[in-house]
């Protein structure tokens, strides 16, 4: 993985010192809160419901064991013994004291981590496919490009005061695991007819109060033009994006108002007119960055493991785990293992310091010291030898991380919601807990099949509800929590925004409503091979609406 060079180390260290001074001046009164807020936000520090919240960047979701152990140590030493992995491949601490945050940032810097640009109107932490570098179907590893973008965008003088935040995601395989069409810029790695690497470029995707699926602005962008073209997009946005209304300031609104052709013409014109000096990527530099992400040496192994077969035959839970939490690796005899942060009835994305340590040990012992964090709020061991799978499973099980539910109904994305977040209008975590308890990870969940439920506690949509097969949006009406349900959303290569079923449901009834939706799907599907999203796209909203509003589950409105 990427290692800091002298410039990176000096830059991050200087930022820690700078922030230490800013905190000291805030505490002494030299800076008012209004003056201090932009500084703390650019260093990932929010003030939430109960306390400050520190959002730590995990660039493109890649970690090593030393870094995860450091995150665990910080959780113990400065927080309440746990952290929350988010939909943007970040980690959030919910209880740090302001006075401790410079020390926390210094600790992070000691393992080449930081919280820079995890907030504020700038280019945020660049995210990537969580199976990057290992997926059997991968075209190319997206992380070198994400790292190049990170270096270019960090403290970029021209793009540090954008109209609004700006999110970039890169995906390396034909199956979009990074939800790129829900980002301001989505980059899909492709090859052209000659086999040359490049990107299909999407712009203007985004969720929040006005959701849009990104629009394709370039079918094929040559690899060398990555920065110059992103620079052109950012320049157009920086100049033309609205600054008069926070809610209309994202590039998706500019695209909506300008139209695809208008924005594309403006970007292409800027791209042609601008001086690419220093932005065109030399082959040698791409190769240099790619070398950091070279796969570890993995000696060839047998494609089938007798040990795994024996265990599957006698242990149904293990067999379930293999079915849902284990994916093919590009090297024969190895697999990619998802450690579920969605225990039945648990808090999606939360990991205790002990769990983090346990996963760090597993990465060291069985996964070439590598880890990934997924935007679906799980942890990934990317290089596990098939023969080691039973041992890895047993150790995950011993710390409660072996729930066999990756991609199933109980693998729910949920934002922190009103339990933690100052912006939230309703709770989301308890809804996720109750749905997960209702369906579990056993026969019922497996009969339902692949199903993505995503829950947000306000219209800012951090829980990605718009692109959930079943989306749940928590709102407040007359002092009560109410939950709107959307169906048919998708964050993959067939991205779509979910449609609202109708009036919302109360806190008490929303889980019954979700069950009604799932039962309706079960009766409507042509067979187990037709997943929820396919059924919805075939039959449409009508049968679900009828079941929700004409039968017993019933809306409260």
């Amino acid at each position: 993985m990427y290692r800091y060079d002298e410039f990176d180390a000096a830059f991050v260290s200087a930022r820690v010192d700078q922030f230490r001074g800013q905190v000291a001046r805030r505490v002494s009164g030299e800076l008012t809160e209004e003056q201090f807020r932009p500084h703390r936000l650019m260093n990932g520090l929010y003030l939430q419901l109960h306390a400050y919240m520190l959002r730590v960047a995990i660039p493109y979701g890649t970690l090593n064991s030393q870094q995860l152990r450091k995150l665990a140590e910080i959780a113990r030493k400065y927080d309440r013994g746990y952290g929350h992995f988010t939909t943007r491949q970040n980690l959030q601490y919910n209880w740090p004291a302001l006075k401790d945050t410079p020390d926390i940032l210094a600790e992070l810097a000691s393992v080449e981590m930081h919280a820079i640009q995890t907030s504020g109107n700038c280019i945020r932490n660049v995210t990537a496919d969580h199976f990057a570098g290992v997926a059997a179907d991968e075209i190319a590893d997206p992380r070198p490009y994400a790292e190049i973008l990170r270096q270019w965008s960090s403290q970029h003088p021209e793009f540090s005061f954008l109209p609004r935040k700006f999110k970039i995601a890169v995906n390396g395989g034909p199956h979009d695991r990074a939800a790129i069409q829900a980002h301001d810029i989505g980059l899909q790695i492709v090859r052209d007819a000659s086999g040359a690497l490049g990107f299909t470029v999407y712009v203007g995707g985004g969720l929040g109060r006005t959701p849009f699926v990104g629009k394709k602005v370039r079918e094929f962008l040559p690899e060398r033009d990555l920065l110059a073209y992103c620079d052109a997009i950012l320049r157009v946005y920086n100049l033309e994006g609205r600054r008069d209304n926070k809610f209309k300031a994202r590039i998706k609104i500019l695209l909506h108002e300008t139209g695809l052709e208008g924005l594309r013409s403006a970007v292409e014109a800027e791209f042609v007119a601008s001086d690419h000096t220093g932005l065109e990527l030399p082959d040698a530099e791409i190769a240099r960055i790619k070398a950091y992400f070279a796969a570890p040496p993995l000696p060839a192994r047998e494609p089938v493991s007798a040990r795994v077969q024996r265990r599957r035959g006698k242990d149904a839970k293990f067999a379930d785990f293999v079915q849902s939490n284990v994916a093919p690796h590009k090297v024969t005899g190895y697999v990619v293992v998802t450690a579920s942060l969605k225990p039945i009835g648990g808090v999606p994305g939360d990991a205790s310091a002990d769990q983090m340590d346990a996963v760090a040990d597993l990465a060291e012992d069985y996964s070439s010291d590598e880890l990934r964090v997924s935007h679906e709020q799980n942890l990934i061991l990317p290089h596990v030898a098939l023969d080691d799978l039973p041992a890895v499973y047993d150790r995950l099980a011993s710390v409660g991380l072996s729930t066999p539910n990756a991609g199933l109904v109980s693998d729910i994305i949920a934002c922190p919601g009103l339990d933690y977040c100052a912006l939230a209008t309703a709770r989301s975590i308890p809804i996720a807990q109750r749905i997960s308890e209702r369906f579990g990870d056993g026969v019922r969940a497996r009969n339902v099949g692949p199903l993505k439920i995503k829950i947000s506690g306000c219209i800012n949509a951090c829980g990605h509800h718009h692109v959930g097969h079943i989306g749940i949006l928590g709102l407040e009406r007359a002092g009560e929590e109410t939950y709107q349900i959307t169906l048919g959303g998708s964050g993959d290569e067939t991205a779509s925004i979910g449609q609202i079923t109708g009036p919302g449901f109360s806190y008490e009834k929303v889980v019954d409503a979700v069950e009604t939706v799932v039962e309706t799907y079960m009766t409507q599907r042509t067979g187990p091979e037709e997943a929820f999203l396919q059924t919805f796209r075939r039959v449409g909203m009508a049968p679900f609406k009828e079941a929700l509003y004409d039968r017993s589950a019933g809306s409260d409105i």
Partner: protein
Amino acid sequence: MRGRPKQRDQNESKLMDAMITANRLSDGIVVFQDADGGWSEDFHRGAVFSDEGAKGAALARAEQSEADCEVVGPYAIEIESRNGHFVPKALREAIRASGPTIRRDLGKQAHGQAPSIVQHASVEISHVSL
């Protein structure tokens, strides 16, 4: 100021009972203005204001406290009486005054500082509707 909730005279101001809250600057912890104009982490020690004048004066004290770098973002919350106890009216404020509803071991509720009705509800089930 704080006392047992009482029946209002029809001619009395319609102002909802209020309390002043903020986050402490040094660690962000939620605090409530007490009867002495200082700050307490415990909702039970928060001063209750029943008229606009007293509330305004309390807010002015809180703003001075903010200027003195003790707290951040002070504001008034509405409180009401339930079963003879003052509690925050809004769910958001009930959660701020107690802690996350999904982790009873965290926040003020872990130290017996949650508003009474919230504490009672919390022992029933973990997914309680406050």
